[in-house]
């Protein structure tokens, strides 16, 4: 029991290994107009936070996410396109930052896998249904259920 508790404590302390300076200054980003804000939010929700890996850049409170949000806004103001901004981050942090990975040879399985599985499932269902067809349905004897 004590061992179990110790183990649990160890597991609970694991996230502490991922260090992020949490004392972020919380000045919100200032947008020039609504269009800029919409574009920024769309972009930030498509980018993944590199520190807390299950959150988008828009959702995360980690310091690095704050920093990257600023970077994204600065790049937008430099007149870069969404694609250029994403490339900018991919060059530095890798494909990981994209929630939607690029379609290329290494990601075909990822993109097409679900469709292939769905088709395979449909195939199985069709073959089962076809096999059953020849067996006539039991005649409706009018019995009430």
């Amino acid at each position, binding site marked *: 029991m004590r061992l179990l508790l110790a183990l649990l404590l160890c597991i609970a302390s694991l996230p502490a290994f991922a*260090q992020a300076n949490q004392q972020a200054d919380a000045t919100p980003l200032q947008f020039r107009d609504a269009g800029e804000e919409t574009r920024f939010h769309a972009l930030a929700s498509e980018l993944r936070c590199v*520190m807390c890996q299950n959150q988008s850049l828009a959702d995360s409170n980690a*310091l690095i996410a704050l920093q*990257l949000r600023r970077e994204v806004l600065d790049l937008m103001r430099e007149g870069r396109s969404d694609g250029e901004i994403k490339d900018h981050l*991919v*060059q*530095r942090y*890798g494909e*990981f930052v994209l929630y939607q990975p690029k379609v290329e040879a290494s990601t075909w399985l990822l993109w097409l896998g679900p469709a292939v599985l769905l088709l395979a499932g449909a195939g199985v269902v069709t073959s089962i249904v076809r096999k059953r067809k020849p067996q006539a349905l039991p005649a409706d004897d009018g019995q009430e259920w």
Partner: protein
Amino acid sequence: MKTSRWLPLLVFVALAMLLAAGVWMSRKPDRDVLPSPLIGKPAPAFALPVLHEPTRTVTLADLKGQPFLLNVWGSWCVECRVEHPVLTKFAESKRLRVIGYNWKDEPADALRWLEQFGNPFWLVLADVEGRSAIDWGIYGAPETFLVDRHGMIQWKHVGPLTDAIIANELLPALQAIEGSR
């Protein structure tokens, strides 16, 4: 008839193998670490002030010519404290220049930290704003980069350095770049 009888078992075995493969692939303790796309590429250009001499600016060009180790740290970073004795021991071996990259830190706090624990660094660069850190793909201290004499990033480690990592990863990488000159 016979094959259809075995089909569910086959599907189950296939799924179990897929699951086992997933578990096997995530066996490494550093599975959360992002592989850096910068390895084998030129280190990003930067011009950063020196922590101890804020008026002096150092660029990547100033550091070329000999390989160096760039260690990202901050006085706010708890794991950097854990790493500190390991890094100090390595720096004292004088194998190569160990350069500190003080990331998003108050210079006064950083100086106090070095005074308290000792300064293992040949030079400490201060990136208070953290703009250059984005070019390096830095996302959490401590991180350590090995840059060769041409300014190419050859190796990177995310998380605190340990004696084992230095012996098994850093030193072989260093030997490889020294052998290829």
